[in-house]
C-alpha cells in the first residue's frame, strides 16, 4: 500500500531540487544589491519587529468574527454550487437552512455592535453591561 505514495515522494524531491536550482541560478545570474528594507521579512506592511505587548483595537477581533461567518459560507457554498446539478433540489433547502443559521449569527454580532467602531458608543455599551 505504501508503494502508492512513491510518486508523492518523487514530487517532493523534484520540488526541492527545483527550488534549489532556481535560487542558485538567480543568485549567480542576477545582480545582488541588498539593503535593509529589501532584507526585511515581509509582513503585510507592518513592522515585523517590536514589543510583544503591543495594544491594538478590540475591533480587530470583531472583524475577524464577521470574517469567519463569510468564510464558512464561501467554503460550503462553493463546492455545493459546483456540484448542484448532480446533488438535486433537496440540497438547496439544506443550504438555505445553513445560510439562515449563519445569518442569525451575523445578525447577532451586528446588533451587538461589531461594526460600531465609535469609541464613545463602545464605552457606552461597556458601561451598560
Amino acid at each position, binding site marked *: 500500500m505504501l508503494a502508492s505514495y512513491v510518486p508523492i515522494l518523487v514530487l517532493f524531491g523534484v520540488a526541492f531540487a527545483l527550488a534549489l536550482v532556481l535560487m542558485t541560478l538567480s543568485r549567480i545570474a542576477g545582480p545582488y544589491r541588498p539593503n535593509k528594507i529589501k532584507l526585511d521579512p515581509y509582513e503585510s506592511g507592518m513592522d515585523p519587529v517590536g514589543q510583544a505587548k503591543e495594544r491594538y483595537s478590540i475591533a480587530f477581533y470583531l472583524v475577524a468574527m464577521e470574517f469567519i461567518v463569510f468564510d464558512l459560507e464561501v467554503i460550503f457554498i462553493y463546492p455545493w454550487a459546483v456540484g448542484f446539478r448532480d446533488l438535486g433540489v*433537496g440540497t438547496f*433547502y439544506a443550504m438555505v437552512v445553513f445560510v439562515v*443559521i449563519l445569518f*442569525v*449569527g451575523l*445578525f*447577532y454580532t*451586528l*446588533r*451587538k455592535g461589531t461594526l460600531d467602531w465609535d469609541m464613545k458608543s463602545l464605552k457606552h455599551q461597556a458601561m451598560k453591561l
Partner: protein
Amino acid sequence: MNYLHDIQAFLPGVIIAFTGLITILLESLKRDVRTMYGVSAAGVLAALIAAILSSTSEGGTAFTDAIVYGGWSSFGQVIILIGTLFSILLSADYLKSKSLHFGEVYAMILFASLGMLVLAASNHLITLFLGIETMSVALYVLAGLMHYRKTGAEAALKYFLLGAFATGFLLFGIALIYGSTGEMTLTSVAAAASPTPLFLAGSGLLLTGIFFKIGAVPFHMWTPDVYEGTPTTLTGFMATSAKTASFVAFALILVRMVPETSYESWQSVIQVIAILTMIVGNVIALVQENVKRMLAYSSIAHAGYLLVGMASGGYSAVLFYLFAYTIMNLGAFGVIAYFERTKNFDFTSIESYAGLGSRAPLMGVLLSVFLFSLIGIPPFAGFMGKYYVFASAVQAGMIPLAVIGVLASAASVYYYLRVMVYLYFKPEHKPVHLEKASVLFTATLILLAASTLYFGIEPLVSVTDLFGFVTGISP
C-alpha cells in the same frame, strides 16, 4: 433521501437547535433575559417530550447512517435533556445573584445540549467528532463566565487547552481508523477492521479522547479546576449531561464499532482504567476542603463506577446509573448554588457549611438526600444504580472489579458524610443572612429529591414502564 424521516429521527436535536437560534435572535432584538429563560426552558421541555416518544419507537438510522435513534440512544438523549432542563431551571436565580444573567448563557447551554444530543446519536465517526466539538466549544464559553476571577479564568483556559489536545487525539484516532479500514460508519468499521497496528493505534487514540471527556484517570486533571471555576449550576450541567453524552457515545462505539476479535483487549483496557479511576477519584476526594472540588473528585469516582458497567457490558445498568447520577448530582450542585447566593460570605470550604442544617432546614435536608444518594445508600436512586452496575460486573465474572468498586464506594462515605457532619453537628461560626430561595428554585430541588427517592424505590418497574426497554441488568 427522505428529509422528513431524517428530521423526525433527530427531532429533539432539531427542536433544541431551533430554540437556540430563537434565543440568539431574541437576545439581539429584545435583550430580555426572562423571556429567553422561559423560551429555552420550554424548548428543552418540548425536546424532552420528543425524545421520550422516540425512545419507545422502533429505532434505526437516519441522515445516510450518520445518526442512530430510538432505543437506548434516545434514552441517553432523555437523560441529557433532563439534565439540561434542570440546569436551566436552577440557573436563573443563581446567575442573577452573581450578575451573570446574560441571555447568551441560555443560548450556550442549548448549543452545548445540541452537541450532546448529536454525540449520543452518533453512528459515524465524523458525527461523533462534530458532537464532541459542538458540546465542548459551548462548554468552554460557559466555563469562562466568571473570567474576572482567578479560578474562572483558570477554568476556561485549562478546559480549552486540554480539551483541544484531547480533540486532537480523538481526531488523529479517527484518521488512523479510517486509514486502516477505509470506513467511517461505526458498523462498517467493525466489519472491515482487522487488528493491524494502525487500527489498534487509532482505537487507542480514540479511547484517549473519550476518556478525557468522561474525566477518567489518568486524564482527569482538568476536572477539579474546571468544576471549581465554573458557575455552580453550570458545573452541574457539565458534570451530568456532558458526561452522559460521552458515555452513551462510548457505549455506541463499544457495541457497534469494536470488532469481536479485539473486544477483549478493549475490555481489559477499560477494566484497568475503571479501577484506577475509582481508587484515585475516591482517595483524593477524601482530603478536599472545597465543596466543589470534592464533588469534582466524586464525579471522577462515579465515572469509575460507570466504567465498571461499561467493561462488563451492562449498558442498561450504565444508563440507569447515568439517570440516577444526573438527578442526584444536579440536586447537590443546586443546593450549593443556593448557599453561594449569600452576599458577603464565601461558601467554598466545607467548614463554611457549619450549623447550616438548622439555619436552612429544607436545604439541609435536600442536600443530605442528594449526598446519601451519591454515597449509594438505599432507598435512593444512587444505590440502585450502583447495585445494577456492580451486579453486571459480577454477572460478567469480573468479581475483583466489583469488589474494588464496593470498597472504593465504602471509602467515599467519609467525604460525603463529612459535609453532613458540618451541616448538623458543628456550631455556626458567625450568623450569616441567607437569601430566600424562589418558589420555582425550591420546587425544582424538591422534584429532584423526590425523583431520587422514587427511582430508588421502584427503579425497574417505573423505568420499564416509562421507557420500555431498560429491562433488568443484561444489555
